């Protein structure tokens, strides 16, 4: 209740709550129902995410990242399982 005066502050000035609630829905409809060339281009861009990632995966850097990752895994196994000087200390 202490924070209710703050959280009830409308985001678009002092618009009533009902109006605020409609904003997200309206905005989304504008985004999705528009037939403008910009919107078509935008939709096209959004569809291309899978293509972007595929193109990126073909480069050298992903291979380097994978090699580094494998090296880190091997280092982890080495830390855990390579025999080292016994560090156990007896209780008391």
């Amino acid at each position: 209740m202490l924070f209710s005066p703050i959280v009830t502050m409308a985001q678009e000035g002092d618009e009533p709550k009902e109006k605020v609630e409609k904003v997200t829905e309206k905005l989304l409809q504008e985004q999705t129902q528009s037939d403008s060339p910009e919107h078509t281009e935008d939709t096209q861009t959004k569809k291309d995410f899978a293509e972007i990632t595929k193109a990126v995966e073909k480069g050298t850097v992903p291979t380097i990242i994978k090699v580094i990752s494998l090296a880190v895994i091997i280092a982890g196994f080495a830390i855990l399982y390579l025999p080292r000087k016994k560090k156990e200390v007896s209780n008391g």
Partner: protein
Amino acid sequence: MDNNEEDTELKWSVKDFNYPVPAHAKQFGYSVGGVTFIGFILLMITGIIMTFFITPTVDGARDSIMVLSSKPWGLWLRSFHSWMSEAFIFLIILHMTRIVFTGSYRGSRKSNWFYGIGLMVIAFAFLFTGSVVKWDQEGYEAYMHAVEQVDLLPVIGPPISAFIQGTTVVMRMFVTHTIVLPLLFFLLLIPHLVLMKLNGLSPLPGKKVTQKIKLSTHIGKIFGWSFIIYGLISFLAMQYPAVLYPGPYSGTEITKPPWIFLVLYQFENWFGMKYLSVFPLLMILGLILLPYIDSKKDDYSITRKIVVWSYIIIMAIFITMIINIAITPPVKHLG
């Protein structure tokens, strides 16, 4: 003060830091909390780097992720952060499971159990807000679920609902994800770690500590496991980049949430949107009550056995639900 005195003081401080801990600290179960902590640090580092590239607006969020993902390091960064967030939840549950199995919430460790529950709840909030911030179809559906749930809350529901709606929703989720939740997390993490140090490592059930190892060996094991787990996640992040769904379309519901929320998804299928919040609240209540139900020091008490077996059965049910939802087509829940 002569040089000899200075040397003695230095030796004392180093030795004090590398104090002996019980030998079972070498086991994975007793290292998983530390592994989770390192996971949080990695999430924080990758998250901070990502904030330089994300445009937290309804129009810009998804596109900025597209731009970031068009570069190999950017794609890895985002995928690693995304995979890590899901692994982080898994490790928290693993850590909690070890604590339940060893009854490490009893006695003086009770208050630390409560801090742990708080940290887990914040971790779920991290996962939720993180998925909304990217503002794709999945984020939008998660967000709409939250709005409908908040609307059902008495008194505080309407103002919070108004706060999270509108064109600034992505910015507000971003601020929550990157500033509010990390602050809350640290607020609970500090006492969690301090109490862990004060109480010491919990004993193995039914066994007396006879052997000890140095703390550096325990930390070495934590790093060893972290290297393996996070190295694997790093590899997978590049091999299987995190999915980014198309921009949100209102009125459709075609995605499924991150794996842990699939349990909620199943409950939503059964009982509908109206009772969705009841289930997590019951789970949290059950976890809070656990140290009161199972409070005896006896590791072989009948209550202990009932608690452990109930936990195993509940977890088995949850895993079945997750698999079931993962292999079945999405269902429309939003009104």
